[in-house]
């Protein structure tokens, strides 16, 4: 009876145990935030009666999903908050929020002038203006833009990819396309080494996570539908290198945007999961360079923990003989995508990440490894230690020729 009589986000199953509040990183540092229980299931009971009960403090939710991971009753606490923000929330700084959320537009405009834009964005005067006019914290340094988009590089190399009998599609995401094409190149190298050619989707838009977080639900839905249609047309699995893009397309499209992604969901896989399963099944083998040496720590991004997929990345990394790897306790890094760039959130963002930064510094690694690009920005900003995706580490550590030979059939 009970199981057929509950709402989509399991609101009625909340037992008021407050485990969600205990693990909420924002509640721990910000007395203005009422915590996930109050902001989510408790507040929802009021909002259903009258939207006037919408509390603007819901903007503080990081959407890290830690509340949902610990909920013993399966309440989708953060989904309730996200849906309500889209319904009733108002942007605190409309121009800035639109700019931060429009990753494709801003990326496309900036890449052609990256040679000029990168040093400009790093200047104190630019930062002051952005802080004063746009409300983007002057203490932040914007991630550097690439001088050439990943897709431009890929177009030149696409013909080489057709020689492989087995193929996969790659959802590169905004970060690889506009900021760090090297990760995309590392992905292509790794796939080629294990005998797979790479194709891009017919059309790819930003997954929409920044649009959802900044209250632009309609635009997020449009972009999501373009991605879902393209993924549907792709004849293979669609691999990613970003935990947040993966999580957004697999879960948020349905739970927050209300789109039907049932046909596409299982096709969207983080590369480390896909690779781990293929290695376990004996379909792929890796050979490593004998001289690869690195001391690193692995940071589990919040969305990675929500998906429960960190073990794929960790177990793959543990295959590398020369990698001295420590897995850190899971703590939120505090950036939450565009959230940490906003002037009013900078101190919260820094304070939330403090435990993680201390853990990293105590381990004194040569590199931090994580599956999330915005965690990378945050960790690099506060620890000055280079932070890399597991795919880049694997691409660097493999013996390319030997791996190709092992997988040639």
């Amino acid at each position: 009876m009970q199981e057929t009589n509950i709402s989509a986000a399991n609101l009625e199953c909340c037992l008021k145990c407050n485990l969600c509040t205990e693990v909420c990183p924002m509640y721990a540092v910000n007395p203005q935030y009422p915590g996930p229980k109050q902001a989510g299931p408790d507040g929802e009971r009021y909002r259903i009666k009258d939207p006037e009960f919408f509390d603007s403090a819901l903007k503080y939710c990081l959407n890290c999903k830690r509340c949902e991971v610990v909920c013993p009753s399966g309440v989708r606490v953060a989904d309730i908050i996200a849906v309500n923000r889209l319904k009733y929330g108002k942007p605190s700084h409309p121009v800035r929020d639109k700019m931060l959320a429009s990753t494709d537009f801003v990326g496309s405009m900036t890449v052609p002038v990256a040679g000029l834009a990168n040093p400009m964005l790093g200047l104190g005067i630019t930062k002051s203006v952005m802080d004063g006019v746009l409300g983007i914290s002057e203490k932040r340094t914007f991630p550097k833009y690439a001088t050439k988009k990943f897709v431009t590089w890929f177009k030149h190399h696409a013909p080489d990819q057709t020689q492989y009998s087995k193929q996969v599609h790659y959802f590169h995401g905004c970060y690889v396309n506009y900021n760090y094409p090297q990760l995309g190149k590392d992905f292509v190298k790794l796939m080629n080494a294990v005998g797979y050619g790479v194709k891009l989707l017919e059309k790819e838009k930003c997954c929409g996570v920044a649009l959802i977080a900044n209250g632009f639900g309609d635009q997020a839905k449009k972009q999501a539908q373009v991605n879902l249609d393209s993924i549907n047309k792709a004849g293979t699995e669609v691999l990613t290198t970003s935990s947040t893009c993966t999580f957004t397309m697999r879960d948020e499209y349905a739970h927050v945007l209300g789109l039907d992604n049932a046909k596409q969901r299982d096709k969207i896989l983080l590369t480390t999961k896909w690779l781990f399963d293929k290695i376990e099944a004996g379909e792929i083998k890796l050979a490593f360079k004998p001289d690869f040496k690195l001391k690193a720590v692995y940071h589990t991004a919040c969305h990675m923990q929500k998906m429960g997929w960190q073990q794929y990345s960790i177990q793959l990394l543990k295959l590398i003989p020369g990698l001295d790897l420590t897995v850190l306790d899971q703590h939120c890094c505090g950036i939450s995508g565009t959230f940490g760039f906003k002037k009013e959130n900078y101190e919260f963002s820094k304070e939330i990440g403090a435990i993680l930064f201390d853990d990293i510094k105590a381990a004194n690694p040569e590199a931090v490894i994580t599956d999330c690009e915005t965690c990378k920005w945050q960790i690099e900003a506060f620890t000055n230690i280079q932070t890399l995706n597991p795919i880049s580490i694997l691409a660097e550590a493999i013996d390319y020729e030997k791996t190709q030979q092992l997988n040639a059939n």
Partner: protein
Amino acid sequence: MKYDVIIIGGDQRDAEFGLQYLKAGKTVCLIAEGGIIGSPQARAAYAKAGGIILMADKVEKVDVNPDGTVDSLRTANLGATPLKADLYILASGRFVAGGLKSDMTHVWEPIFGADVQFAEDPESWCKEDFFAPQPFESFGVKTDNDGHVLKEGKPIANLIAMGSIIAKQ
């Protein structure tokens, strides 16, 4: 993914129990559908000793060998990846934790379909006096003398039950 021991559970005692296996040099994976309830110290000690926790995950499918033993588990989060172990421990609790399910006439164990002991007459499941011992609290999976879970009257050699899910006499 292959471990020596997989515990399906979620409270601090499961983490403490897992820690004993870790100390004995075994690899352990704890599938905690409802997160880890209770002492954060127990959870931290377990994780520090190398214990794996699959948080908020749920066993959706069990692959069974021809001899009735458990071959592997599939979970909601890990999808097609099989989780294998030499020993499986069922510590999924009673009704609130989801280890046992019921409708108006039956009680069942949802993961393995284990034999469950419960009173036939639903009228006898509860007592009106809220503070009296409630008969439904004695319901649970049947085991042999070594703790192996019974299914259709036969013990499953690599599956033992632990904690409140075990039927009380």
